[in-house]
Protein backbone atom coordinates (compact mmCIF):
# COMPACT_ATOMS: atom_id res chain seq x y z
CA UNK A 1 0.00 0.00 0.00
CA UNK A 2 2.77 2.36 0.91
CA UNK A 3 4.58 1.70 -2.31
CA UNK A 4 1.46 2.33 -4.34
CA UNK A 5 0.79 5.64 -2.65
CA UNK A 6 4.40 6.71 -3.28
CA UNK A 7 4.11 5.91 -6.92
CA UNK A 8 0.91 7.91 -7.22
CA UNK A 9 2.23 10.95 -5.40
CA UNK A 10 5.75 11.06 -6.88
CA UNK A 11 5.65 9.52 -10.37
CA UNK A 12 8.26 11.85 -11.88
CA UNK A 13 10.80 11.01 -9.20
CA UNK A 14 10.31 7.29 -9.88
CA UNK A 15 10.98 7.60 -13.62
CA UNK A 16 14.08 9.70 -13.07
CA UNK A 17 15.78 6.99 -11.07
CA UNK A 18 19.49 6.82 -12.07
CA UNK A 19 19.23 3.06 -12.85
CA UNK A 20 16.95 3.84 -15.79
CA UNK A 21 19.35 6.31 -17.34
CA UNK A 22 22.19 3.81 -17.58
CA UNK A 23 22.58 1.85 -20.84
CA UNK A 24 21.18 -1.69 -20.71
CA UNK A 25 23.74 -4.49 -20.35
CA UNK A 26 24.75 -6.17 -23.67
CA UNK A 27 22.76 -9.37 -22.99
CA UNK A 28 19.53 -7.34 -22.71
CA UNK A 29 20.07 -5.26 -25.85
CA UNK A 30 20.70 -8.41 -27.92
CA UNK A 31 17.44 -9.93 -26.78
CA UNK A 32 15.47 -6.96 -28.19
CA UNK A 33 17.18 -6.94 -31.65
CA UNK A 34 14.89 -8.41 -34.34
CA UNK A 35 17.18 -11.08 -35.79
CA UNK A 36 16.62 -12.74 -39.16
CA UNK A 37 13.97 -15.47 -38.76
CA UNK A 38 14.92 -18.47 -40.91
CA UNK A 39 12.35 -21.20 -41.46
CA UNK A 40 13.79 -24.62 -42.29
CA UNK A 41 12.21 -27.96 -43.25
CA UNK A 42 12.88 -31.65 -42.60
CA UNK A 43 12.30 -31.25 -39.69
CA UNK A 44 10.28 -28.01 -39.66
CA UNK A 45 11.95 -25.45 -37.37
CA UNK A 46 12.84 -21.77 -37.15
CA UNK A 47 16.32 -20.49 -36.35
CA UNK A 48 17.47 -16.92 -35.68
CA UNK A 49 20.50 -15.64 -37.57
CA UNK A 50 22.31 -12.31 -37.20
CA UNK A 51 22.34 -10.15 -40.33
CA UNK A 52 23.35 -8.58 -42.61
CA UNK A 53 24.35 -11.62 -44.65
CA UNK A 54 24.28 -12.70 -48.27
CA UNK A 55 22.09 -15.67 -49.23
CA UNK A 56 25.08 -17.81 -50.16
CA UNK A 57 26.75 -16.97 -46.82
CA UNK A 58 23.60 -17.96 -44.94
CA UNK A 59 23.42 -21.30 -46.78
CA UNK A 60 27.11 -21.95 -46.13
CA UNK A 61 26.68 -21.11 -42.44
CA UNK A 62 23.81 -23.59 -42.17
CA UNK A 63 25.81 -26.16 -44.15
CA UNK A 64 23.20 -26.32 -46.92
CA UNK A 65 23.94 -26.95 -50.61
CA UNK A 66 22.79 -24.17 -53.00
CA UNK A 67 21.69 -26.65 -55.68
CA UNK A 68 19.31 -28.40 -53.28
CA UNK A 69 17.57 -25.32 -51.86
CA UNK A 70 15.56 -22.23 -52.73
CA UNK A 71 15.66 -19.12 -50.56
CA UNK A 72 12.43 -17.15 -50.23
CA UNK A 73 12.37 -13.70 -48.59
CA UNK A 74 8.80 -12.83 -47.60
CA UNK A 75 6.98 -14.05 -50.72
CA UNK A 76 9.83 -13.50 -53.16
CA UNK A 77 12.47 -15.84 -54.48
CA UNK A 78 15.96 -14.36 -54.09
CA UNK A 79 19.31 -15.01 -55.77
CA UNK A 80 22.51 -16.06 -53.97
CA UNK A 81 23.98 -12.53 -53.94
CA UNK A 82 20.91 -10.93 -52.27
CA UNK A 83 21.65 -9.25 -48.92
CA UNK A 84 19.49 -10.43 -46.02
CA UNK A 85 19.01 -8.22 -42.96
CA UNK A 86 17.87 -8.49 -39.36
CA UNK A 87 14.09 -8.64 -39.16
CA UNK A 88 13.73 -10.40 -42.54
CA UNK A 89 11.45 -13.45 -42.71
CA UNK A 90 13.32 -16.10 -44.66
CA UNK A 91 12.27 -19.57 -45.80
CA UNK A 92 14.88 -22.06 -46.98
CA UNK A 93 12.95 -24.63 -48.97
CA UNK A 94 14.51 -27.97 -49.88
CA UNK A 95 13.85 -29.03 -53.47
CA UNK A 96 14.78 -32.71 -53.40
CA UNK A 97 12.04 -35.31 -53.64
CA UNK A 98 11.76 -38.91 -54.70
CA UNK A 99 11.70 -42.47 -53.52
CA UNK A 100 11.77 -45.53 -55.71
CA UNK A 101 14.84 -45.90 -57.91
CA UNK A 102 12.82 -48.23 -60.11
CA UNK A 103 9.67 -46.23 -60.82
CA UNK A 104 10.73 -46.67 -64.35
CA UNK A 105 8.92 -47.78 -67.45
CA UNK A 106 9.51 -51.50 -67.41
CA UNK A 107 6.87 -54.19 -67.19
CA UNK A 108 5.79 -55.46 -63.79
Amino acid sequence: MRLLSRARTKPTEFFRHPWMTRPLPPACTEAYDPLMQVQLSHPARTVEVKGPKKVKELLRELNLVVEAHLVIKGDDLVTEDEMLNDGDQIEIRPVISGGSPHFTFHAS
Partner: protein
Amino acid sequence: MNCTKCKTKAVIGLPRHNAAFCRGCFNGFVHDQVARAIKSEWMFGKEDRILVAVSGGKDSLALWDILLKLGYRADALYVNLGIGAYSVQSHAKVTKFAEVVAVSHGATLHLHTVEQEAGAGIKELAQLIHRPTCSTCGTIKRYQFNRVAIEQHYDVMATGHNLDDEAARLLGNVLHWQEEYLDKQGPSLPASVEGFAKKVKPLYRLSERELAAYAVLNRIDYIVEECPMAKGSKMLQYKEVLNRLETESPGTKQTFYWGFLEKQSKKQPTAATMTEKDRAVLHPCTSCSQPTTAEVCSYCKMMARAKTVVPR
Protein backbone atom coordinates in the same frame (compact mmCIF):
# COMPACT_ATOMS: atom_id res chain seq x y z
CA MET B 1 22.22 -10.14 -59.97
CA ASN B 2 20.33 -9.01 -63.09
CA CYS B 3 18.33 -10.95 -65.66
CA THR B 4 20.53 -12.10 -68.55
CA LYS B 5 17.80 -11.27 -71.06
CA CYS B 6 16.01 -8.08 -69.93
CA LYS B 7 18.53 -6.73 -67.34
CA THR B 8 15.91 -6.23 -64.60
CA LYS B 9 16.39 -7.73 -61.11
CA ALA B 10 16.84 -11.51 -61.31
CA VAL B 11 14.99 -13.95 -59.04
CA ILE B 12 17.06 -17.04 -59.83
CA GLY B 13 20.60 -17.74 -60.96
CA LEU B 14 21.30 -20.78 -63.15
CA PRO B 15 25.04 -21.48 -62.93
CA ARG B 16 24.87 -24.45 -65.35
CA HIS B 17 23.61 -22.09 -68.05
CA ASN B 18 25.77 -19.19 -66.85
CA ALA B 19 22.57 -17.15 -66.67
CA ALA B 20 20.09 -15.49 -64.31
CA PHE B 21 16.45 -14.68 -64.99
CA CYS B 22 13.62 -12.46 -63.76
CA ARG B 23 10.21 -14.12 -63.24
CA GLY B 24 8.93 -13.49 -66.78
CA CYS B 25 12.11 -14.57 -68.56
CA PHE B 26 12.46 -17.62 -66.28
CA ASN B 27 8.94 -18.79 -67.22
CA GLY B 28 9.91 -18.33 -70.86
CA PHE B 29 13.09 -20.38 -70.28
CA VAL B 30 11.15 -23.24 -68.60
CA HIS B 31 8.48 -23.35 -71.33
CA ASP B 32 11.19 -23.28 -73.99
CA GLN B 33 13.08 -26.20 -72.38
CA VAL B 34 9.90 -28.32 -72.24
CA ALA B 35 8.96 -27.42 -75.82
CA ARG B 36 12.47 -28.42 -76.96
CA ALA B 37 12.22 -31.75 -75.10
CA ILE B 38 8.81 -32.52 -76.67
CA LYS B 39 10.02 -31.65 -80.17
CA SER B 40 13.46 -33.25 -80.08
CA GLU B 41 12.19 -36.56 -78.67
CA TRP B 42 9.01 -36.67 -80.79
CA MET B 43 6.90 -36.95 -77.63
CA PHE B 44 3.49 -35.74 -78.81
CA GLY B 45 1.67 -33.18 -80.92
CA LYS B 46 -1.02 -30.57 -80.27
CA GLU B 47 -3.79 -32.99 -81.28
CA ASP B 48 -2.68 -35.83 -79.00
CA ARG B 49 -4.48 -36.54 -75.71
CA ILE B 50 -1.99 -36.63 -72.82
CA LEU B 51 -2.42 -38.23 -69.41
CA VAL B 52 -0.17 -36.57 -66.80
CA ALA B 53 0.72 -38.61 -63.71
CA VAL B 54 0.29 -36.18 -60.79
CA SER B 55 1.29 -36.68 -57.16
CA GLY B 56 0.77 -33.25 -55.57
CA GLY B 57 4.52 -32.58 -55.72
CA LYS B 58 6.20 -29.70 -57.55
CA ASP B 59 7.31 -31.63 -60.64
CA SER B 60 4.02 -33.22 -61.66
CA LEU B 61 1.92 -30.12 -60.94
CA ALA B 62 4.45 -27.92 -62.76
CA LEU B 63 4.33 -30.33 -65.72
CA TRP B 64 0.53 -30.21 -65.88
CA ASP B 65 0.66 -26.38 -65.61
CA ILE B 66 3.30 -26.04 -68.36
CA LEU B 67 1.54 -28.42 -70.79
CA LEU B 68 -1.76 -26.59 -70.35
CA LYS B 69 -0.09 -23.19 -70.83
CA LEU B 70 1.69 -24.48 -73.96
CA GLY B 71 -1.74 -25.40 -75.34
CA TYR B 72 -1.64 -29.20 -75.07
CA ARG B 73 -4.68 -31.39 -74.31
CA ALA B 74 -3.51 -32.67 -70.92
CA ASP B 75 -5.66 -34.47 -68.34
CA ALA B 76 -4.21 -35.98 -65.16
CA LEU B 77 -4.44 -39.02 -62.89
CA TYR B 78 -3.81 -38.94 -59.14
CA VAL B 79 -3.27 -42.21 -57.26
CA ASN B 80 -4.11 -41.92 -53.56
CA LEU B 81 -1.67 -44.33 -51.90
CA GLY B 82 -3.20 -44.17 -48.43
CA ILE B 83 -0.11 -42.87 -46.62
CA GLY B 84 -2.01 -41.21 -43.73
CA ALA B 85 -1.82 -37.42 -43.46
CA TYR B 86 0.67 -37.22 -46.35
CA SER B 87 -1.85 -38.65 -48.83
CA VAL B 88 -4.67 -36.48 -47.43
CA GLN B 89 -2.53 -33.39 -47.94
CA SER B 90 -1.24 -34.30 -51.42
CA HIS B 91 -4.77 -35.24 -52.56
CA ALA B 92 -6.01 -31.81 -51.40
CA LYS B 93 -3.20 -30.02 -53.31
CA VAL B 94 -3.98 -31.88 -56.54
CA THR B 95 -7.73 -31.24 -56.24
CA LYS B 96 -7.11 -27.56 -55.55
CA PHE B 97 -4.84 -27.22 -58.60
CA ALA B 98 -7.40 -29.02 -60.78
CA GLU B 99 -10.19 -26.70 -59.63
CA VAL B 100 -8.23 -23.45 -59.74
CA VAL B 101 -6.04 -23.93 -62.84
CA ALA B 102 -6.83 -27.05 -64.88
CA VAL B 103 -10.61 -26.69 -65.13
CA SER B 104 -10.24 -23.29 -66.80
CA HIS B 105 -8.23 -25.04 -69.56
CA GLY B 106 -10.94 -27.71 -69.94
CA ALA B 107 -8.77 -30.43 -68.34
CA THR B 108 -10.01 -33.37 -66.24
CA LEU B 109 -8.57 -34.99 -63.11
CA HIS B 110 -8.96 -38.77 -62.72
CA LEU B 111 -8.61 -40.37 -59.30
CA HIS B 112 -7.69 -43.83 -58.10
CA THR B 113 -7.65 -44.79 -54.42
CA VAL B 114 -5.50 -47.80 -53.48
CA GLU B 115 -7.43 -48.49 -50.26
CA GLN B 116 -10.71 -48.72 -52.13
CA GLU B 117 -9.39 -51.49 -54.36
CA ALA B 118 -6.95 -53.33 -52.12
CA GLY B 119 -8.57 -52.68 -48.73
CA ALA B 120 -5.23 -51.42 -47.39
CA GLY B 121 -2.76 -48.60 -47.87
CA ILE B 122 0.65 -48.90 -49.53
CA LYS B 123 2.54 -49.54 -46.28
CA GLU B 124 0.36 -52.51 -45.32
CA LEU B 125 0.50 -53.90 -48.86
CA ALA B 126 4.30 -53.72 -48.88
CA GLN B 127 4.47 -55.63 -45.60
CA LEU B 128 2.06 -58.21 -46.98
CA ILE B 129 4.17 -59.02 -50.01
CA HIS B 130 7.52 -58.53 -48.23
CA ARG B 131 8.77 -55.83 -50.57
CA PRO B 132 10.10 -52.30 -49.91
CA THR B 133 7.35 -49.65 -49.81
CA CYS B 134 8.89 -47.60 -52.64
CA SER B 135 9.01 -50.63 -54.91
CA THR B 136 5.35 -51.49 -54.15
CA CYS B 137 4.42 -47.87 -54.81
CA GLY B 138 6.21 -48.06 -58.19
CA THR B 139 4.32 -51.21 -59.18
CA ILE B 140 0.94 -49.71 -58.28
CA LYS B 141 1.55 -46.35 -59.96
CA ARG B 142 2.96 -47.92 -63.14
CA TYR B 143 0.00 -50.27 -63.39
CA GLN B 144 -2.72 -47.70 -62.69
CA PHE B 145 -1.29 -45.00 -64.97
CA ASN B 146 -0.95 -47.48 -67.80
CA ARG B 147 -4.43 -48.90 -67.17
CA VAL B 148 -6.14 -45.50 -67.26
CA ALA B 149 -4.14 -44.40 -70.32
CA ILE B 150 -5.19 -47.54 -72.23
CA GLU B 151 -8.81 -47.67 -71.02
CA GLN B 152 -9.46 -43.97 -71.63
CA HIS B 153 -7.67 -44.00 -75.00
CA TYR B 154 -4.93 -41.48 -74.23
CA ASP B 155 -2.22 -41.21 -76.88
CA VAL B 156 0.59 -40.76 -74.39
CA MET B 157 1.33 -40.80 -70.68
CA ALA B 158 3.60 -38.05 -69.24
CA THR B 159 5.46 -38.17 -65.93
CA GLY B 160 7.23 -35.38 -64.04
CA HIS B 161 10.69 -37.00 -63.96
CA ASN B 162 13.29 -34.24 -64.05
CA LEU B 163 17.03 -34.04 -64.75
CA ASP B 164 17.89 -34.85 -61.11
CA ASP B 165 15.64 -37.95 -61.10
CA GLU B 166 17.18 -39.27 -64.29
CA ALA B 167 20.78 -38.47 -63.33
CA ALA B 168 20.31 -40.10 -59.90
CA ARG B 169 18.74 -43.21 -61.42
CA LEU B 170 21.51 -43.43 -63.99
CA LEU B 171 24.11 -43.15 -61.21
CA GLY B 172 22.36 -45.94 -59.28
CA ASN B 173 22.16 -48.19 -62.33
CA VAL B 174 25.81 -47.58 -63.22
CA LEU B 175 27.03 -48.10 -59.65
CA HIS B 176 25.32 -51.49 -59.59
CA TRP B 177 25.93 -52.24 -63.28
CA GLN B 178 22.23 -52.80 -63.90
CA GLU B 179 22.67 -52.62 -67.65
CA GLU B 180 19.24 -54.11 -68.33
CA TYR B 181 17.65 -50.88 -67.01
CA LEU B 182 19.80 -48.53 -69.10
CA ASP B 183 17.91 -49.15 -72.36
CA LYS B 184 14.74 -47.77 -70.83
CA GLN B 185 16.23 -44.63 -69.31
CA GLY B 186 15.38 -42.49 -72.30
CA PRO B 187 12.83 -39.66 -72.04
CA SER B 188 10.49 -41.15 -74.64
CA LEU B 189 9.44 -44.81 -74.76
CA PRO B 190 7.19 -46.12 -77.51
CA ALA B 191 4.06 -48.19 -76.96
CA SER B 192 6.14 -51.26 -77.73
CA VAL B 193 3.45 -53.90 -77.27
CA GLU B 194 -0.33 -54.07 -77.22
CA GLY B 195 -1.52 -52.91 -73.79
CA PHE B 196 1.35 -50.50 -73.16
CA ALA B 197 0.84 -46.75 -73.48
CA LYS B 198 3.59 -44.53 -74.89
CA LYS B 199 5.47 -42.89 -72.00
CA VAL B 200 7.35 -39.59 -71.98
CA LYS B 201 9.30 -37.37 -69.56
CA PRO B 202 9.02 -33.77 -70.84
CA LEU B 203 10.91 -32.30 -67.84
CA TYR B 204 14.17 -34.17 -68.41
CA ARG B 205 15.97 -30.96 -69.43
CA LEU B 206 15.07 -29.13 -66.18
CA SER B 207 16.60 -29.57 -62.73
CA GLU B 208 14.66 -30.12 -59.55
CA ARG B 209 15.65 -26.66 -58.28
CA GLU B 210 14.43 -25.01 -61.49
CA LEU B 211 11.07 -26.78 -61.20
CA ALA B 212 10.67 -25.84 -57.54
CA ALA B 213 11.42 -22.23 -58.52
CA TYR B 214 8.81 -22.44 -61.31
CA ALA B 215 6.22 -23.69 -58.80
CA VAL B 216 7.04 -20.92 -56.28
CA LEU B 217 7.05 -18.16 -58.91
CA ASN B 218 3.74 -19.30 -60.40
CA ARG B 219 2.09 -19.75 -56.98
CA ILE B 220 1.56 -23.48 -57.52
CA ASP B 221 0.60 -24.85 -54.12
CA TYR B 222 2.47 -28.16 -53.90
CA ILE B 223 3.35 -30.54 -51.07
CA VAL B 224 6.79 -29.53 -49.77
CA GLU B 225 7.07 -32.35 -47.21
CA GLU B 226 9.03 -35.39 -48.26
CA CYS B 227 7.07 -38.66 -48.60
CA PRO B 228 7.53 -40.33 -45.18
CA MET B 229 8.14 -43.66 -46.94
CA ALA B 230 11.08 -42.25 -48.96
CA LYS B 231 13.22 -41.25 -45.96
CA GLY B 232 16.74 -42.60 -46.29
CA SER B 233 16.10 -43.97 -49.79
CA LYS B 234 19.04 -44.62 -52.09
CA MET B 235 17.66 -42.18 -54.67
CA LEU B 236 17.84 -39.32 -52.15
CA GLN B 237 21.44 -40.24 -51.33
CA TYR B 238 22.43 -40.23 -55.01
CA LYS B 239 20.73 -36.87 -55.50
CA GLU B 240 22.57 -35.42 -52.52
CA VAL B 241 25.92 -36.54 -53.91
CA LEU B 242 25.12 -35.17 -57.38
CA ASN B 243 23.99 -31.84 -55.92
CA ARG B 244 27.29 -31.46 -54.06
CA LEU B 245 29.14 -32.10 -57.32
CA GLU B 246 26.81 -29.72 -59.19
CA THR B 247 27.42 -26.89 -56.68
CA GLU B 248 31.18 -27.28 -57.06
CA SER B 249 31.07 -27.86 -60.79
CA PRO B 250 27.90 -26.53 -62.48
CA GLY B 251 26.61 -28.64 -65.37
CA THR B 252 27.68 -32.01 -63.92
CA LYS B 253 24.19 -33.55 -63.85
CA GLN B 254 23.39 -32.32 -67.35
CA THR B 255 26.66 -33.60 -68.79
CA PHE B 256 26.19 -36.96 -67.07
CA TYR B 257 22.61 -37.65 -68.22
CA TRP B 258 22.54 -35.87 -71.57
CA GLY B 259 25.93 -37.39 -72.39
CA PHE B 260 24.46 -40.83 -71.66
CA LEU B 261 21.47 -40.14 -73.93
CA GLU B 262 23.76 -39.03 -76.73
CA LYS B 263 25.86 -42.17 -76.45
CA GLN B 264 22.76 -44.37 -76.30
CA SER B 265 21.26 -42.76 -79.40
CA LYS B 266 24.47 -43.44 -81.34
CA LYS B 267 24.79 -46.96 -79.97
CA GLN B 268 21.40 -48.53 -80.52
CA PRO B 269 17.94 -48.09 -79.09
CA THR B 270 15.82 -47.17 -81.98
CA ALA B 271 12.12 -47.62 -81.31
CA ALA B 272 12.25 -50.76 -83.45
CA THR B 273 14.90 -52.60 -81.42
CA MET B 274 13.18 -51.75 -78.14
CA THR B 275 9.86 -52.96 -79.56
CA GLU B 276 11.46 -56.19 -80.78
CA LYS B 277 13.00 -56.82 -77.37
CA ASP B 278 9.71 -56.17 -75.56
CA ARG B 279 7.73 -58.38 -77.92
CA ALA B 280 10.13 -61.22 -77.30
CA VAL B 281 9.68 -61.22 -73.51
CA LEU B 282 6.27 -59.66 -72.81
CA HIS B 283 2.84 -61.24 -73.13
CA PRO B 284 -0.60 -60.43 -71.67
CA CYS B 285 -1.20 -61.18 -67.98
CA THR B 286 -3.71 -64.04 -67.70
CA SER B 287 -5.64 -62.04 -65.12
CA CYS B 288 -5.73 -58.43 -66.38
CA SER B 289 -4.16 -58.56 -69.89
CA GLN B 290 -1.51 -55.89 -69.16
CA PRO B 291 1.90 -56.87 -70.57
CA THR B 292 4.14 -58.83 -68.20
CA THR B 293 7.15 -61.13 -68.26
CA ALA B 294 5.44 -63.66 -65.96
CA GLU B 295 2.17 -65.55 -66.38
CA VAL B 296 0.43 -63.26 -63.86
CA CYS B 297 1.74 -59.69 -63.46
CA SER B 298 3.13 -58.55 -60.09
CA TYR B 299 0.20 -56.14 -59.61
CA CYS B 300 -2.37 -58.93 -59.90
CA LYS B 301 -0.29 -61.15 -57.61
CA MET B 302 -0.19 -58.34 -55.04
CA MET B 303 -3.95 -57.73 -55.25
CA ALA B 304 -4.71 -61.45 -55.00
CA ARG B 305 -2.59 -61.67 -51.85
CA ALA B 306 -4.23 -58.54 -50.41
CA LYS B 307 -7.71 -59.95 -51.00
CA THR B 308 -6.92 -63.17 -49.14
CA VAL B 309 -5.32 -61.46 -46.14
CA VAL B 310 -6.91 -58.03 -45.66
CA PRO B 311 -10.35 -58.22 -44.00
CA ARG B 312 -12.89 -56.25 -46.10
